[in-house]
């Protein structure tokens, strides 16, 4: 169930290439991979979002196989392509709804807001970027944290959202995750963090973003010493400073199929070594093969797999 490599239709092989190919257009260095998540599948209940390069409305082109998919059908499968099984973008809110028992989620630290400590400006001022991203996504920053139940097991849960500045980790993401970890340690709760962070450590907050990696990792070290369980779920995409900190520190590391996961962005690597990257490079399957992932878990199975792991680990 976890290794769905062989029975794939032939389109899938190219799909893997496309997945990393897209992000290759993004950037360099650890903190990048600028794939915008595919335009949010129509979920009219939440804030409207501008869609980029994807036809509006009832149909959506699958990032995996290129087929035009009736959106409703994919939504019924938790945003998984019914034809090729490619796992599409889900927002943090959708993810929480999929994963936690109905009505059990209580958000924590929603009162934290990003600011602009560096006075950072590229083509656009970071201060303006924060406001426009908040308007576009309806989120305050790239993470949602809180507590809730998974099949009646109480957990501390954090989800990063790749639509907010590529899910990158700045001070707010680092602080909310650290508080979540500390809460899990103090309350002896299993900790679940689901990463969708192509942006790694957020450049716009400079060295402060880098230090969030150390901060969250230190909190996880304490959690582990106290005997706390941490399940890290890596989803498309998880790169740079997020992959190189909390996302890799799970007692158990699960990954959704065909997610892009790695340290350096494909374009940086290409520019450095000047050879074509192998097919399927930096995918979940690649990481599984090289021994860094415990299980590849399809989205539909994630909830029950997490519940089962908690049971095994004495949660």
């Amino acid at each position, binding site marked *: 169930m976890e290794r769905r490599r062989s029975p794939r239709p032939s389109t899938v092989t190219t799909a893997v290439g496309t997945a990393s190919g897209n992000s290759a257009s993004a*950037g360099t260095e650890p903190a990048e991979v600028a794939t915008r998540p595919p335009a949010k599948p129509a979920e009219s209940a939440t804030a409207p979002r501008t869609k980029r390069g994807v036809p509006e409305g009832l149909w959506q082109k699958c990032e995996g196989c290129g087929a035009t998919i009736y959106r409703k059908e994919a939504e019924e499968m938790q945003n998984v392509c019914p034809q090729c099984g490619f796992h599409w973008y889900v927002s943090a809110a959708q993810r929480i709804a999929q994963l936690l028992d109905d009505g059990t989620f209580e958000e924590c630290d929603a009162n934290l807001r990003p600011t602009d400590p560096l006075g*950072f400006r*590229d083509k656009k001022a970071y201060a303006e970027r924060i406001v426009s991203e908040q308007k576009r996504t309806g989120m305050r920053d790239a993470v949602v944290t809180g507590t809730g139940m998974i099949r009646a097991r109480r957990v501390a849960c954090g989800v990063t959202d790749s639509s907010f500045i590529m899910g990158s980790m700045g001070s707010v993401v680092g602080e909310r995750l650290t508080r979540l970890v500390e809460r899990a340690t103090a309350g002896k709760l299993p900790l679940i963090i689901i990463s969708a962070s192509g942006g790694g450590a957020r450049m716009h907050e400079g*060295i*402060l973003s880098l230090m969030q990696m150390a901060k969250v990792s230190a909190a996880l070290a304490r959690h582990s010493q106290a005997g706390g369980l941490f399940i890290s779920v890596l989803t498309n995409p998880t790169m740079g400073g997020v*992959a190189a900190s909390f996302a*890799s520190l799970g007692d158990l590391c699960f990954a959704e199929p065909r997610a892009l996961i790695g340290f*350096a962005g494909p374009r*940086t690597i290409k520019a450095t070594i000047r050879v074509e990257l192998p097919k399927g490079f930096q995918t979940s399957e690649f990481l599984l093969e090289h021994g860094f992932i415990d299980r590849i878990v399809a989205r539909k199975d994630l909830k029950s797999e997490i519940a089962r792991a908690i049971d095994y680990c004495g949660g």
Partner: protein
Amino acid sequence: MSSALHRLPLEKPIYQIEDRISQLEAAPVGAQEQEELRRLKRELVEVQKNVFGSLDPWQTVEVARHPNRPKTSDYLSLVFDEFVELHGDKAFGDDPAMLTGFAKLEQHKVLVVGHQKGKTLAERQACHFGCAHPEGYRKAMGKMRLAAKYGLPVICLIDTPGAYPGIGAEERGQAQVIAESMFLMATLPVPIVCAVIGEGGSGGALGIGVGDRVAVLEHAYYSVISPEGCAGILWKSVEFKADAARALRFRSRDLKEFGVIDAVIEEPAGGAHRHPRQMATRLKTWLVRSLRSLVDQPTDTLVAERYEKFRRMGVFLEEAAS
């Protein structure tokens, strides 16, 4: 000595004077030339101060990357009384980009971990210009565990453009080892003192950077991403590297201001590459002083304070909870 140095364009006013001094010193000397020499030497000091006192952020990067800038291996001989290299990660290989070993720092027996860039072209290539592979971080972790077991303080010398971006590095878990190394250092039961001596490149630097005391040399930098990488992503062209360097605020004084480092170690006028011995003495003074303040702390206090140190980092707004 300076004639053998690689010459950065920004140093032109300095080496113009240095060249004239060399000429005068080589020629037969009369009273007039003596006077001129004295005048030039005074001027040189002033010009060095001016040039290095007003580096812009991109120039700082150039100085931090200066080919003649003292490297970990230089400090190993100039700062420490002995260095006993320990090789290998006991799993895959021995990464030359990460040096580890026992060393003596005055009366302290310590374990040193440091990035190595290499001096000759062959060395540089072997070290991948200071970009460590996963086996380098595994080696560092292995030796730090050893240090913890035998109560040796750890000294980390940071000088890397970043962890190596390559196929093998990804296959062997570059992200995993950097995360694990921070995780390990966060609770390591011995003092850890870190200094960024040249380039503090992103996760590759932080991977050996979780310490009780962290200093940055005056003209070193420590950044979430290289200025080239940042320019490529946000400006869509590496040409904007100087703009990115300015925006990232990664110079020693900025880092101090943001509360992410404890100290800036001043460089001699003209930079560490002109006066490696003087630089080494200053680095040694800081290392010894830091170590002295830590060695007698109870382990619990030490580790708790290290946690609090990183716990405080970050800037955000917190609205009153409703």
